């Protein structure tokens, strides 16, 4: 197993948010975690990547117990986290954002760094002509591509992504998810957290549904997509009708996101 999470509890100070999450992602597997706003998806990824301390439970990365590792050490061990809202370094050039993505590999072989970069460029050819541009001047979709490419520069074993589709037009969502599928086909392990269930179901090997800090359903995307509990309750109002509306960043979701960010 590339990533194995057992009974994970975490939260913010005295506020417990995750109540015993179990999640497994095998090598070369793409696991989608879906759930409504506030379900605890971002909290789960923050706990996985060491941004938040784990209260109890364990995280194993490729067989190593990495519970309690800080983000630095986890990045070095092979977990890359593409955060919510992309968080590219705005005044730095696209090329420098990529260089910093490989920060933990700075003392490693230059050939490996170059290979990681070539692969990221091949995955997102739109970035190539923009290498010298400040990252803050990229479009939302390009920033998301850069954020993923930056994560790949760390040469991870496991890539976790927090809502890569947020605020993007459906065509770009498709482009990004097909890139994730390609990474999976190349043998990378991916965990993608999404509210946009439709995009996630299309590429995922397995899906976990989260609600209020717990995994409430788990299984095959084909089976789950017809499950009335998914389309009904856990996504806060259905996924088929909702999916495209969320991708277009309607003003209402924009407002909740702004609150989310703080």
């Amino acid at each position, binding site marked *: 197993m590339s990533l194995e999470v057992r009974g994970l509890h975490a939260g913010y100070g005295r506020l417990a948010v995750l109540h015993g999450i179990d999640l497994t992602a095998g090598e070369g597997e793409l696991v989608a975690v879906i759930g409504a706003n506030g379900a605890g998806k971002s909290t789960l990824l923050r706990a996985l*990547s060491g*941004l938040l301390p784990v209260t109890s439970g364990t995280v194993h990365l490729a067989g190593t117990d990495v519970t309690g590792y800080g*983000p*630095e050490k986890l*990045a*070095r061990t092979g977990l*890359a*986290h593409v*955060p919510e809202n992309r*968080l*590219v*370094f*705005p*005044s*730095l050039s696209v090329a*420098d954002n990529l*260089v*910093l*993505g490989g*920060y*933990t590999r*700075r003392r490693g072989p230059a050939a490996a760094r170059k290979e990681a970069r070539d692969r990221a460029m091949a995955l997102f050819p739109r970035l190539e002509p923009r290498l010298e541009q*400040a990252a*803050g*001047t990229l479009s939302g979709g390009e920033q998301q591509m850069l954020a993923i490419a*930056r*994560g790949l520069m*760390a040469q991870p074993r496991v890539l976790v992504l927090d809502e890569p589709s947020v605020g993007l037009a459906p065509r770009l969502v498709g482009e990004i998810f097909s890139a994730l599928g390609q990474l999976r086909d190349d043998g990378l392990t991916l965990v993608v957290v999404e509210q946009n269930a439709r995009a996630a179901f299309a590429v995922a090997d397995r899906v976990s549904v989260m609600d209020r800090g717990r995994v409430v359903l788990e299984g095959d995307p084909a089976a789950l997509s017809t499950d009335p509990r998914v389309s009904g309750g856990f996504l806060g109002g259905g996924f088929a009708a909702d999916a495209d509306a969320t991708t277009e960043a309607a003003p209402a979701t924009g407002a909740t996101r702004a609150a989310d960010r703080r």
Partner: protein
Amino acid sequence: MTDLLQLLFAGLSQGAVYALVAIGFVAIFTVSGVINLAQGEFAALAGLVAISAVGSGLPLLAAVVLAVLSVALVAVIMERLVIFPVKRMTTLVSLILTLGVSTGLKALMLLVYGPNAEGLTPLTPGSFSLGGVSIRYQELWILLIAGVVSLAVYWFYERTLAGKSLRACAEQPVAARLVGISLTKASLLSFLIAGTVGAIAGVLASPIYFTSWESGLTLGLKGFVAATLGGLISVRGAVLGGLLLGVLETLTAGYISTGLRDAVAFLLLIIVLVARPAGIFGRTAEARV
């Protein structure tokens, strides 16, 4: 005309000192949001260490190197003892903490070096006259060294991985941690830079402007104003702010009244904070460092 040139030149050399102090403020503030009120004390301490080292027979250059290294060490120790242990640093907390360090350093300097103001031996003594403008060799040294140091700092932030990692911490601390940059190491590095440039400012200024246990107060305030003119997050802005402040001060002192010299900084500060809080040279958030 000669008067004006004379004042401009004196202003630039004074301003170059402010610029270095200002770079120190920027280096620390961008990484951690800390406003380091002990920045002026770094300069004063360096001056005093160099003066006493020369007094005890060390060659000038060795004394200068010793002074810069000791102050860099003081800055690093300060970060570990006072900044690092704080879990949730805010700018207000940082003001209180660094004011404490500043006061402590002043007391220590008074205790060790006494109350008198002294000047370090200049790198090259004497002066010469160029078209009626009298120029001290030390002023040339100030301009030259401050110029080289500013360019080096700028190059560091623009071209080196370590420099870029500091900018990354300043812009997106969460993403910086996720790519594996340690914020605590970044903060330590920023204090090392601030201590070093502050100390260089102190030893450069001492032969002309003199140093005492309390000279860090004015120097620190002027450096802070210069940094604020540049928006507090830009090395280029800090340098321009320092030069502008130096020139405006000398022109005011020369044409209006010497008594008003120190008022210029505060007038500028008020104008900038009211009219352009992002600094007068700041463009947008994109223009950092």
